[in-house]
């Protein structure tokens, strides 16, 4: 008998099964660590200490998490509309250009809190613009958005390297990066927030964009579950034919969903560009766009889940970096393996345990 149609209570579907998938992913990661001759439990202990043990460690963890909240939200918004946006990486890269141009233009004249709203808009606009062509191609020409966004990641990377090497570079310098922004173009650190908890931020670049990320998470929740547009997007995501039959304009909804998705990805750039390095650098995104896929899948495309999943990946990124110092045998790329396994088990194999769960649940109910 097919088990697909048997309903399961929400706590199993949204609680137990994701948790189980996550545990399997971590278990296999542990096996890899054991395979290369290290102690998985000792590694786990180092990882947690390295990400949550000190004030600056927590600061770095939250710094990474901030980027992942943005990209996770970006992937999730498109996902609700039935679109798989693999292009968050490229959209974030272009978003950095928008943020940097605003910072370079304004940092001499105004304090940071005046620059910030313009930078948010600039980053979002550039990110959205980079999502527009794939969105338009999907809506009007039927080209698959997955393929076009992959292509646009590469086109974006080439464009940004060109701009940084030939246009934005400081004359006479070798490094392909813009000049350092003055304080008017930087986002201040959140040491006061850490001080509330009696923690010292130290050198960690945990900054105001974290608060922007939380606001965006709330706004995405409002958009998806409390507005007409969000309703239309979800309908389109569940059944495009039903959506069209109900009079929801397909093309317009696809394009708007992708623009919002691209805008959220673009805002991710605020965190590293204006919050940490205070300049635009080559490859500053560093894979955060792809982590967004894992975060969104793990968080089941719900903003709350995304914030939690982003924190987990922040822990992995910061803890993994620390771990590679303590255990040189385990390189930073271990995080990439874990990330891949999480995407595999929480995403592609999300229903692997469902038949077993159904049998178990039915037996429990009968007992």
């Amino acid at each position: 008998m097919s088990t697909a149609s048997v309903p399961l209570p929400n706590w199993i579907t949204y609680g137990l099964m994701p948790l189980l998938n996550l545990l399997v992913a971590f278990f296999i990661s542990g096996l890899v660590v054991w395979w290369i001759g290290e102690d998985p439990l000792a590694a786990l202990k180092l990882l947690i200490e390295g990400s949550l043990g000190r004030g600056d460690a927590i600061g770095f963890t939250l710094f990474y998490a901030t980027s992942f909240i943005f990209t996770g939200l970006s992937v999730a918004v498109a996902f609700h509309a039935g679109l798989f946006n693999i292009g968050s990486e490229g959209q974030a890269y272009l978003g950095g250009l928008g943020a940097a141009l605003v910072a370079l233009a304004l940092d001499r004249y105004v304090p940071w809190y005046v620059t910030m709203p313009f930078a948010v808009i600039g980053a979002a606009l550039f990110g959205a613009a980079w999502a527009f062509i794939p969105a338009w191609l999907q809506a009007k020409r039927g080209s698959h958005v997955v393929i076009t966004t992959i292509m646009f990641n590469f086109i974006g990377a080439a464009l940004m390297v060109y701009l940084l090497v030939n246009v934005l570079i400081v004359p006479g310098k070798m490094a392909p990066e813009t000049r350092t922004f003055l304080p008017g173009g930087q986002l201040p650190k959140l040491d006061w927030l850490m001080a509330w908890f009696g923690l010292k931020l130290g050198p960690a670049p945990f900054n105001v964009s974290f608060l922007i990320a939380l606001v965006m998470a709330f706004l995405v929740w409002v958009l998806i579950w409390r507005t007409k547009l969000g309703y239309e997007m979800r309908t389109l995501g569940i059944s495009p034919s039903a959506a069209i039959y109900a009079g929801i304009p397909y093309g317009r909804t696809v394009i708007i969903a992708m623009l919002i998705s691209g805008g959220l990805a673009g805002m991710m750039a605020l965190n590293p560009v204006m919050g940490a390095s205070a300049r635009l650098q080559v490859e500053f995104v560093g894979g955060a766009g792809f982590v967004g896929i894992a975060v969104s899948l793990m968080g089941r495309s719900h903003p709350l889940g995304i914030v939690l999943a982003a924190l987990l990946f922040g822990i992995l990124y910061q803890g993994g970096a620390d771990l590679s110092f303590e255990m040189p045998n385990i390189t930073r790329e271990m995080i990439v393996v874990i990330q891949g396994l999480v995407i595999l088990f929480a995403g592609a194999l999300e229903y692997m345990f469902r038949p077993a769960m159904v049998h178990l649940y039915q037996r429990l109910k009968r007992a």
Partner: protein
Amino acid sequence: MEFYDIVVSILGSTIRLSIPLLFTALAGLFTERAGVFDIGLEGKMLAAAFASACVAYVTGNAWLGLLGGIGVSILFSLIHGFASITNRGNQIVSGVALNFVAAGLTVVLGQAWFGQGGRTPQISGEARFSPITLPFVDAMRDVPFIGPLYVHVISGNNILTYLAFLAVPITWWVLFRTRFGLRLRAVGENPGAVDTAGISVTWLRYRAVIVAGFLCGFSGAYLSIAQSAAFIKDMSAGKGYIALAALIFAKWKPVPVMFACLLFGFLDAFANFMQGKAVPGIGEVPVQIFQALPYILTCILLAGFIGVAHPPKAGGVPYTKER
């Protein structure tokens, strides 16, 4: 004559840069024609490159290295199949996941085993596929026009290069002249009809992804033990995605796939040649334009401005036998 020498040298590197694309694009052709999207080509190529280099280094035999690469690549294919065929998971998510696993695992294992920052040790001699000199090279050398072409483009490649070009007609024959090929294409267009005819959709699609794994094994081995002499971190460098672009650009047909791969290989070779050189009247053309051109061309094609690309109808949709 100097101009002709340059042309010959660019054509030579075009061939060398096209081969990994060709194997990988043919691999994608098999899965996508069977209705399974494969974003994981990149990862399979990378994993195969690593496995080939490791096995070739340990055994000192290039063919065993190739076999190791094929084995690992097929293993990745089977995971992709398990997730997207058996468990009916999202094929794109599965492919993305495998790309990450490959990108991470090759470096983690490489560092743990060899301690060279994710590289494998240098491979030489029998452990590599060396260039083959075809007969009559010395006699042909002085023949005008055809001579240099024969000596530098057609001869002097390694065995995998010739196998890649051989794989094109074989792929065509398998897909369009055998019963397996007919069923494979049918399962990508209308799996329900195939199922009604009493043929297992699952087993057909598994065979398609296994063939893809087999071919990606060749492209990986080409990267690490034919073109280079070691595995280097992230050495596939997006070639899997360019191959995917070539596959789409060729509208999912074997012979056009070869020409698309040669075109993208040529763009790459031409970009290398143009680096730092000025074009009269324009000045130095940024190398990034050539890097982005395969992707831009594919997007223009997808937009329907260069003919219309019809993907297999059932692509990306898991098959549910009954409700």
